[in-house]
């Protein structure tokens, strides 16, 4: 379970080497007067690429689960056909005892050879079974599911993990994690 104390002592992390470079600018990010133009997604646009550059995640173990990968029960070492849409689903709670669901969940795939990371949005699902198991049938929806297009991803071993957001805080979950082969 994540507590704010855990979060405070957790290791601050950045996502990409690009961001690491941006950390140097962090000091002037919050009071800067000149923003920068950046782009993301598939379309390119003119202008320098940059981001807010602030430290954005803490590492911590999460009360969460990766249940389904590729429409099958999640198991380490699963071999996934890149040509198919890959679906990853599960559940996560910020505080299961208090019946607090996460605000948001993101699925991450890290190529274990190159450390390249892909992050995907998810859709919420109720997961009433988990709510009942946790003893909070009326809590917010805590299921998540993401369908990813991986046809252009490099084949190899990947680590599937999740990020969760709660009350403005972004947490990179050190567990659950799962290795798969694309």
């Amino acid at each position, binding site marked *: 379970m994540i507590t704010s104390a855990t979060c405070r002592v957790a290791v601050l992390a950045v996502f990409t080497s690009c961001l690491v470079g941006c950390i140097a600018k962090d000091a002037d990010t919050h009071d800067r007067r000149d923003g920068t133009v950046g782009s993301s997604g598939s379309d390119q646009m003119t202008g320098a690429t940059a981001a807010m550059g602030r430290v954005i995640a803490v590492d911590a173990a999460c009360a969460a689960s990766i249940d389904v990968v590729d429409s099958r029960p999640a198991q380490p070492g699963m071999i996934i056909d890149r040509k198919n849409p890959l679906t990853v689903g599960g559940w996560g709670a910020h505080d299961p005892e208090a019946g607090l669901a996460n605000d948001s969940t993101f699925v991450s795939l890290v190529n274990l050879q190159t450390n390249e990371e892909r992050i995907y949005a998810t859709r919420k699902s109720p997961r009433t079974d988990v709510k009942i198991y946790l003893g909070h049938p009326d809590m917010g929806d805590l299921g998540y599911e993401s369908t990813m297009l991986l046809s252009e991803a490099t084949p190899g071993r990947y680590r599937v993990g999740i990020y969760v957001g709660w009350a*403005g805080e972004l947490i990179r979950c050190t567990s659950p994690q799962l290795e798969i082969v694309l």
Partner: protein
Amino acid sequence: MQTKPSRATRILSVLCHAVAALTAVLLFFPGTSRMPGASLDESWVVALNQALPQGLAVGRDVIFTLGPFAPVFTKTYFPATWAFAVGWSMVLAACYVVMLTYISRTRPLIAPLLFAAVAAFISDDWNASFMAFPLLAASALRATLAMPPAGKHGIGDLPLAIAVALGTSILLLMKGSFIPACVVTLGAWTTIAALQRRHMLAVGMPLLVLALLPILWLSSGQSLSSLPGYFRSALPMISGYTEAMSAVGRRSEIAAYLLVAAVIVAMLVPRSFRLAEWPRWAYLASVGCTVLMAFKAGFVRHDGHAMTAAYVPLIAALLAVPWYLRGPRLLPPALALIGALYISGHYASVKPLDLGARMTRWAASGIGELAALPGSQARLNAQFADKMATLRDHSPVPRGDGQPADIYSYNQSYLIAQGWKWRPRPIFQSYSVYTPALNEKNRDFLLSDSAPRTIFYAIQPIDNRYAAQEDSLSLPVLLGAYRPVRRLPAGFLQLEREVDGAQAAPQLHEISRTTAALGQSVAVPPSEEATFVQLHLRKTALGALKSILFKPGELSLEVTMPSGAKTFRLVPKIAESGFILSPDLGDLNTLLATFAGEVPARARPTSFKVVASGGGRDWKSEYEVTFSALPLKTRPAVNELLYDAQIQPEDLWHLVTPAGQCIATIDLINGAPASGTMIHGTSGAVSIDGWGAVDLGAGEGIAADAFEVLLRRTDGMTLHLATTMSARNDVKAHLGKMEMGDIGYHAKADAVPPGIYDIELYRAYAGNYARCEFARPRLTVEERKR
């Protein structure tokens, strides 16, 4: 010679009949506590109650196992149908009281009290209370015809003729499965009355039914021309139900029922076919048909429905007490009571205290609701409005504005609660599309000009059916003529009509035809398209007989997928119409991929087999298989709905930054007032100007340290705009806070790709970020016109 009853007996008899009358009223009074809901059953209740005020023709526009008198059966509050339901339910209660009066002429005390006790006992099964009607009618008619006619020209028979005809007419228009027992009872006793020259009954009952049916039909707001269609449509709904909807339950319950039914029938079978015995045969026909219908109603779909099969034999056994020809007369009721307790004990507590509490609660709540009825309309309407608001809150369907729409496969409550104009396919819940005739009706509707432009679709197969078996002929039309435009919560898709007329019809090309045996694996021909299959399975004579009397053994469809085998329930009549076998459309992603024209290999079955899991002797061992190719349209845009957006790491924080204290506005977009949307070419810059602050409260207020402006396209692509702060003294002067820090911002981007963008604004203050929530225009960027 019969002795005249004493005054005390007469008073007691009146009191007993009053109790029975009150019980009859409680048995059918719709009550005020049931409000609309969202489950499968609650959705057809909502749909049928919506169909009447909307002017949909039952039997043509909507086809279901219930007819236009469904509101009397559903007992759920709807402002538009409640008066209708209350009125006709009270008429039906009156029919029961009249029939009971004729039955109890020789038992004026015990019969009404028994009726009251049994009514309270069976009150938790609505089917049983309605199915008791033919039994009461037969008993009343038999008792009456056993005595000489009363009054001049047999006028004493008239109230009974009216009650039987009125009740029969109500039930005929209420539920398809009530039709056989009502028709058999009416036919049998009309014949007996004619043989006995009791013209008031022989002529009165059938003539009254013929006269009342159109009157009742019109009273439900239906057009007279659609009445024949209702009875025509009832046939496939009844005949197809057995194979499609059956479910296996405890065999001991069936054994208990059969024992009770056998004893009742054995003690009623006349000794000969002589004319004098015909009333006995007529009575046996009424009882036999009703008890058989209760058997099918209870055990074909063997779950809580079994209560019907528990209660109806009990009613039959009690009513038949004066007419048993052999054996101890109290044996059938005693056995029936034990059987009813045994069967119903599997679904509810039958401990004496619990039973007593349930019956008392039923009576008390019914009386309470009746007493509170005067002036309750406003309160009920408010409760109804609250319930509809709750449905809206939980609805995966977005708010509608009166535009026509339909929903697959069964959540009509959401669609109606959200203000869409419900334009249903005839068989409006997909699991009920279980015969070729019904399947074709729904397909033809989709191909017609009446089909709605908007459809909400969710994969919701029941009973572990193969997903594409639900509305199996409509699915190819949906794949070709509609395109998904929105992915909604709870697995729903919003589909919009893409093509009309002949273009909408699916183009199936036969690939191969073969004969296979049950249990034999059949290879699915490899194809880049979807594969449609028709299986022509035929019952044996034994299977056909079992279909009529009970149900044939179930069939399973074992499908071999690249990841392994899966087993599904196979509905033979749906398989005869045909269904999409490949891909397996059991999950939304595969359905979206199929809409996109890119079927994933993992969703393609390699082979299948049909297995007679429940009764190999009920089905002929060989069957014909026809494979056809169903070409798929290529729609790359659908992939935007299929795949979740890939997010750049630097964008994550925006997605988790919550709304916080912030006051902000957008004044200008590209120098023009920011109202509505705006359009410009791709090479043009976008600029956004406005002002904002953390707080404008007491004192000088709190200015933000910085603002961040983002454009987020609907596919998830995000653009950060270069943002600078400015003083905006005009605003500060207007606010009277000239000492505040800079509150203006100016954001710009050199080139923005085409798309629809949400504008997001974030403020930084003292090291914290917050998203500014306020009404913002959407930005539409179009390709530059050359």
